[in-house]
């Protein structure tokens, strides 16, 4: 156990050769007249052509690193100590012209929202050409080079894309254009800040493949910033883990994720369902406590208050960076004890098995919804038949625009379905309009929205928010109301002190708990969970998922769980329904749908998901855009993107029926199940 000081080992090959060299960097933001440290003593280097990942939860300082590197810190932020060198130059010491040149030639950035990175009033081609013009090319040459660049980011029809305005491009297409622009100057360093977070999994996979390929072509170093551990594991050679502004662990990606040597990294990894983990295998672990507020004075290790193995010395002395293996460091006194980190959440599971009752709680027949957009009929949902069993969790997956949310809204009665659709609950028809539903039906169906900031009225207190369903739906008042309120607050693991607060005073996880409490207040039978954790940090996500599982066991509710995160769906769902262009492609028990044989679309969705446990050896990639729901393709709607399309032409001409391929497993595909099994028999995973 050697405690090296925080200086990165002065490698002979490193030094001036490094694309990025950051040493002892402190960045502070001045808020209300006080400097608050957002980064403390951060040191790392990125070698030429290396891909370096920074992971961390929100508020860890990931983006501040990127902003400091390019000297784009907001006006109240400043580098208060330490040094930065990019390609041998110090951006902090450059004069405005030199700084402009550095940004124009040496560093490029790609942000989360491609739509915001492009100027909406300028055609895409013009925007890319500008980069070349800055570099001194003539107008015609610049346009020619732009077209070439767009081709290199795998845009099949660059000429047409160049003529378009940014809003006419899909998210994935726009992000490619941004990447094309970023690479046009052939920078030495490309900074990607959550580049795929706003994209669908299938598009994300394409963009990640593209970035990995281009990195080699362009001989560029990457700084890849993400909250998604799997994406970082896939994309990066080395990884640094940021926590509350400190780089707490660093090392080669695979090693670090396989054998974390800091309790925080360990905890983060345990928050994610992995290797096909399911709710009946045990609860996810969570990290207790909360991120310290920025700028707090800390005596010892910043993670000590949340660490289950912290000792007295952890709280008294800040740990130095320990050398924990070749090219690895950890800021933890107890890095050797990390592998045996005790769980913070007990494993034991109490599960409600879905009741084996004959009658499903909800039957959906021929459910369709047509919206009219600019005079065109858009079929958001087309003839979906689905039964929801009592007490089960039905996972609903599909890309954006597949109709997941529309299905949920129709079920809830927030949007009326087309004529001819039928939804029944316990054999009673459910009115298409909420106002036509009686109190029993109103009570039965509730929702937990994705974003609690939007779902909670910001002017109401927690008490008002949680009591309202008790008054309106459960019909409680007086002491009974107070008793049930206290009960409900306890069951979502909140405390009475939270009751007088308003949503903006709560953390993201707490807000979502309030939303869950509201959904459960009326004693619902079905709760729609529409991406309930995607706005939350990983460590909070696990706690919310555990809460949902506990509540299900206690209240015997049925969940309709909508998520784009397939690992989450797999963890929580009993059955899974896969939607594409408003049609049901596959429906079956979660394990069967995941292990296969599965519908080629499901297969593509699964191959798109980056995993921490190594990639599937064979992967199929979806190319092309999701067709417009206004003019869905003929035959099987998936045939335009299907990598396993049959040569006979039947896929183009005839829509396959949703047929049972094995007990309880339905699929809408022309390929016979045996053939699918053969096609999809992968090498066993390493």
């Amino acid at each position, binding site marked *: 156990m050697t405690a090296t000081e925080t200086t990165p080992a002065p490698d002979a090959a490193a030094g001036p050769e490094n694309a990025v060299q950051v040493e002892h960097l402190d960045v502070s933001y001045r808020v209300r007249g006080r400097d608050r440290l957002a980064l403390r003593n951060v040191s790392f280097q990125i070698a030429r052509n290396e891909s370096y990942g920074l992971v961390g939860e929100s508020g860890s300082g990931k983006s501040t690193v990127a902003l400091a590197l390019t000297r784009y810190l907001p006006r109240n932020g400043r580098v208060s100590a330490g040094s930065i060198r990019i390609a041998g130059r110090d951006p902090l010491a450059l004069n405005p012209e030199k700084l402009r040149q550095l940004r124009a030639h040496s560093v490029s950035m790609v942000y989360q929202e491609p739509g915001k990175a492009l100027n909406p009033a300028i055609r895409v081609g013009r925007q890319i050409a500008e980069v070349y013009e800055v570099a001194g090319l003539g107008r015609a040459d610049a346009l020619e080079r732009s077209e070439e660049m767009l081709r290199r980011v795998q845009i099949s029809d660059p000429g047409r894309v160049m003529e378009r305005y940014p809003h006419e491009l899909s998210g994935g297409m726009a992000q490619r254009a941004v990447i094309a622009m970023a690479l046009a100057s052939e920078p030495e360093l490309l900074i990607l800040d959550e580049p795929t977070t706003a994209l669908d999994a299938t598009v994300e996979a394409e963009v990640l493949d593209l970035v990995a390929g281009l990195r080699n072509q362009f001989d560029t170093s990457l700084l890849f910033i993400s909250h998604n551990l799997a994406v970082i594991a896939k994309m990066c050679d080395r990884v640094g883990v940021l926590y509350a502004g400190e780089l707490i662990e660093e090392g080669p990606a695979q090693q670090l994720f396989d054998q974390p040597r800091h309790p925080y990294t360990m905890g983060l990894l345990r928050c994610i369902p992995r290797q096909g983990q399911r709710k009946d295998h045990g609860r996810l672990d969570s990290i207790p406590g909360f991120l310290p507020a920025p700028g707090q004075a800390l005596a010892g290790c910043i993670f000590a208050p*949340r660490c289950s193995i912290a000792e007295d010395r952890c709280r008294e002395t800040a740990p130095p960076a320990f050398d924990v293996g070749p090219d690895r460091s950890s800021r933890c006194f107890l890095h050797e004890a990390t592998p045996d980190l*005790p769980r913070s959440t007990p494993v034991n599971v109490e599960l409600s098995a879905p009741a084996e009752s004959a009658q499903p709680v909800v039957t959906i027949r021929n459910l369709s919804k047509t919206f009219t957009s600019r005079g065109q009929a858009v079929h958001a949902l087309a003839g979906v038949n689905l039964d929801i069993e009592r007490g089960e969790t039905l996972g609903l997956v599909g890309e954006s625009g597949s109709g997941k949310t529309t299905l949920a809204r129709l079920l809830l009665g927030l949007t009326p379905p087309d004529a001819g659709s039928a939804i029944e609950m316990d054999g009673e028809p459910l009115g298409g309009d909420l106002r036509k539903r009686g109190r029993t039906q109103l009570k039965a169906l509730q929702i937990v929205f994705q974003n609690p900031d939007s779902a*909670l009225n910001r002017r109401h207190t927690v008490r008002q928010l949680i009591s309202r369903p008790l008054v309106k739906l459960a019909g409680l008042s007086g002491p009974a109301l107070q008793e049930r309120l206290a009960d409900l607050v306890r069951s979502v693991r909140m405390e009475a002190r939270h009751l007088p607060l308003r949503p903006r005073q709560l953390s993201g996880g707490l807000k979502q708990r309030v939303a869950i409490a509201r959904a459960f207040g009326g004693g619902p039978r079905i709760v729609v969970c529409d991406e309930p954790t995607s706005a939350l940090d990983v460590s909070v996500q696990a706690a919310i998922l555990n809460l949902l599982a506990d509540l299900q066991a206690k209240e015997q509710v049925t969940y309709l769980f909508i998520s784009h995160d397939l690992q989450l769906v797999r963890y929580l769902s009993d059955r899974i329904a896969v939607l594409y262009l408003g049609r049901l492609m596959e429906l079956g028990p979660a394990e069967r749908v995941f292990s296969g044989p599965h519908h080629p679309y499901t297969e593509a969705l699964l191959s798109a998901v980056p995993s921490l446990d190594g990639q599937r050896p064979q992967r199929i990639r979806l190319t092309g855009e999701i067709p417009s729901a206004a003019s869905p393709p003929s035959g099987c709607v998936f045939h335009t993107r299907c990598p396993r399309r049959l040569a006979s032409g039947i896929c183009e001409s005839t829509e396959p029926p949703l047929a049972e391929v094995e007990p309880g497993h339905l699929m809408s595909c022309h390929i016979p199940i045996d053939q699918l099994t053969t096609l999809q028999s992968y090498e066993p995973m390493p």
Partner: protein
Amino acid sequence: MATPPGTPGIVASDTQRRELPVWRLLLRRPTFVTGALILLFWVVCAIFGTSIAPHSPLAQQLLATNQAPSAAHWFGTDQLGRDMLSRVIVGARTMLIIAPLATVVGTVLGTALGLALGYLGGVVDLLASRVIEAVLALPALLVIFLFMVPLGVTTLSQVLVIGFIFTPLIARTVRSAVQVERQLDYVPAARLLGERSGWMMFVEILPNVVPTILVEFTVRLGYAVFAVASLAFLGFGVQLSTPNWGTDINANYAVLGAGYWWGSLFPALAIASLIIGINLVADSVEQVVVG
């Protein structure tokens, strides 16, 4: 070895400290304090007018007409020898009664209309919005005259007419704020609890558009002062016996050419300072509650 989290040194918390109330945030702003002091000055004048004025605003001194500002008459005297300083001080009352009341009328009606149109939407909203736009296209002063003539010039008629003129303006602002709120998920969440339209509008949505209404109110108040002064200047001032800034400008405006500038200038400065005060307050309110 394992200790519960929350050891001394770090107060990691799941909640944020309470924010400062709006009035404390406002008091931190020099622009607000300046504006509020100007307003306060005029409010004091309006309330205590005759008791702080050095002379009676109505007392004529026919031997001392059109006197330039002096130690005896800081703002000079008018054609009838009345003390201009006293007239300016006492004239604040009329203004500070009519302008705020008119703005309140406009804000209440506009908010109700905007809430209903924004929340209910549909055909009614479409039609009403077209009507609002048509009304807004007419010159406001002309519309005010049209109503003023049959109603007669009284405090009440001025309050109502200016209030009605403001109604569509405020309704339009409130309506678009409500439409933004309607996109948020708390609206369907409340509908799923079986809430009725009235509850949705007044308990769920209204509190969230209050900041917008507050800003609109302060901005409109400035315009109301301007409207009241303009009406008086054009001869629609209430009761000629009470001092009125707009009427005074009008009365002394004719003798400007003779070099008697004080009779018009001081009431005009009074109007300007009041509007500036209101605008300073409005700006700060907007920055604090919206920004």
